[in-house]
């Protein structure tokens, strides 16, 4: 990431600037009749967002509702790992090239590194931590263990989230189709054959995923 993110001096300056902006807005809001402010924010949703440097964000992660306040530049991946301590989702390349960060948003698999958290207001997120049913592993997790679908394991959470989606999307009817629709998940250990075998077993088992 950008070095200025971690520089103490600039962080201080940012905090001060943020405080000034927020306090001047609060003053302004206090002077404006309530209904006017409500009307403005309903129309654009932007009067507030444009001034505050942190934005309120409501979303549901693995069935738990969260009310958060985040900087717009926080990616969904960083929110999960840094703010919610859900470190199962991995940061591989951070540029949408490896798939280690794959999560489900409203049931669809996406690269969490390439979207800003604030863009997921009101959405339901599922991460690898939310896949098992209590202590009972998801069938895809069982199949990855059975077929040795990993070596170092770093890409595995993304592989499993992607594999579950691949079956749900109906794109796991053949080895060729699985390989094509799993191509967004890179495994540097080269466990691909075993990953394909795991997916084929779950698909062939006809269990609901």
């Amino acid at each position: 990431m950008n070095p200025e993110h971690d520089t103490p001096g600039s962080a201080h300056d940012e905090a001060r600037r943020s405080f000034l902006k927020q306090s001047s807005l609060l003053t302004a809001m206090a002077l404006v009749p309530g209904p006017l402010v409500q009307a403005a924010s309903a129309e654009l949703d932007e009067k507030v967002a444009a001034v505050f440097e942190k934005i309120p964000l409501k979303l549901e992660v693995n069935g738990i509702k969260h009310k958060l306040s985040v900087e717009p530049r926080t990616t969904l991946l960083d929110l999960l790992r840094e703010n919610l301590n859900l470190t199962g989702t991995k940061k591989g390349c951070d540029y949408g090239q490896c798939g280690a960060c794959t999560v489900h948003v409203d049931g669809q698999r996406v690269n969490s590194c390439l979207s800003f958290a604030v863009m997921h207001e009101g959405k339901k997120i599922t991460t690898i931590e939310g896949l098992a049913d209590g202590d009972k592993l998801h069938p895809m997790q069982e199949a990855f263990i059975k077929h040795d679908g990993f070596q170092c394991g770093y890409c595995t959470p993304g592989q499993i989230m992607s594999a579950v989606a691949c079956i749900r999307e109906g794109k796991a009817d053949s080895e060729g189709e699985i390989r094509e629709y799993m191509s967004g998940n890179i495994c540097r250990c080269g466990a691909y054959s075993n990953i394909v075998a795991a997916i084929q077993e779950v698909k062939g088992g006809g269990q609901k995923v």
Partner: protein
Amino acid sequence: MNQFQYVRPTKQQAAIEAVAKDATATFIAGGTNLVDLMKRGVMTPQKLVDINRLPLTRIDADPGKLRIGALALNSTVADDKQVRARQPLLALALNAGASAQLRNMATVGGNMLQRTRCSYFYDTTMPCNKREPGTGCGALEGINRMHAIFGFSDKCIAVHPSDMSVALVALDATVQVSGPKGNRSIPFAELHRLPGDMPQKDTTLEPGELITAVDVPDGPFTKHVHYQKVRERASYAFALLSVAAALDLDSNNIIKAARLAMGGVAHKPWRLTAAEQALVGKPATEETFRQAATVAMQGAKAFKHNAYKLQLGPNTIIQALKTAASAA
């Protein structure tokens, strides 16, 4: 990443105004390219106008054309029954691009507006006239194996990376645009521009103009179509070169109509009109395809590392046409 303001208008006009009146503002939809570019400091917008609350996701199957909303996801369009039946070439091209995850995020409007993947554009320590006008083109004398063979200038030899756009230009699509001065339609072939002296401008869109939909007219190209993409691994890589081919054949295998376009060869999706004309009225044979490929490559010029495209181009055209002709 730089800090930025984030706004999420619910009205199209508010979104357009927010970008039109602020030169540092830009729209964000799927974000799959913009977020990437912002992380690398290639693009540093001060304000992001999130358009995902605008009602632009519909795919309308109108008589005579499909109207695809700018916010329809690449995966949704590729799997849409109407699209697959009426414009199978578009579905093929969409599925050739990116990965399943990215297609679940990327929108139709964003796909056509994605920036080049030229490594000099992406590397902020290198000169690039597209990123920073006046600094020069790093690729011209640099590593240029991915670069253009048509329509380049001495300011920029980058290529447009979209697969979808290659199909859309072949299918005579029209882009619907809304802006501060009202609405207008842009023929797809005129959306992207050649670099000339202003490689920083990818398209003919004016500041604040928002793509709202793309119209794809019905045609006879529902059966004999193929999108042939050549890349360095089997999936999930940008094209070295690609070809969108569509044929309409009569019962004697004579070509009644043809569409042909190339990707990975120019600053815009490269329609091959002269080669199309060379196909019409001829039998759908390899010899016909070879002649058309020769026409298609006229005027191509290679740089130090991309001369392979001069041979890969015609070979891929012939292969795409053969596959299209034999498609059952």
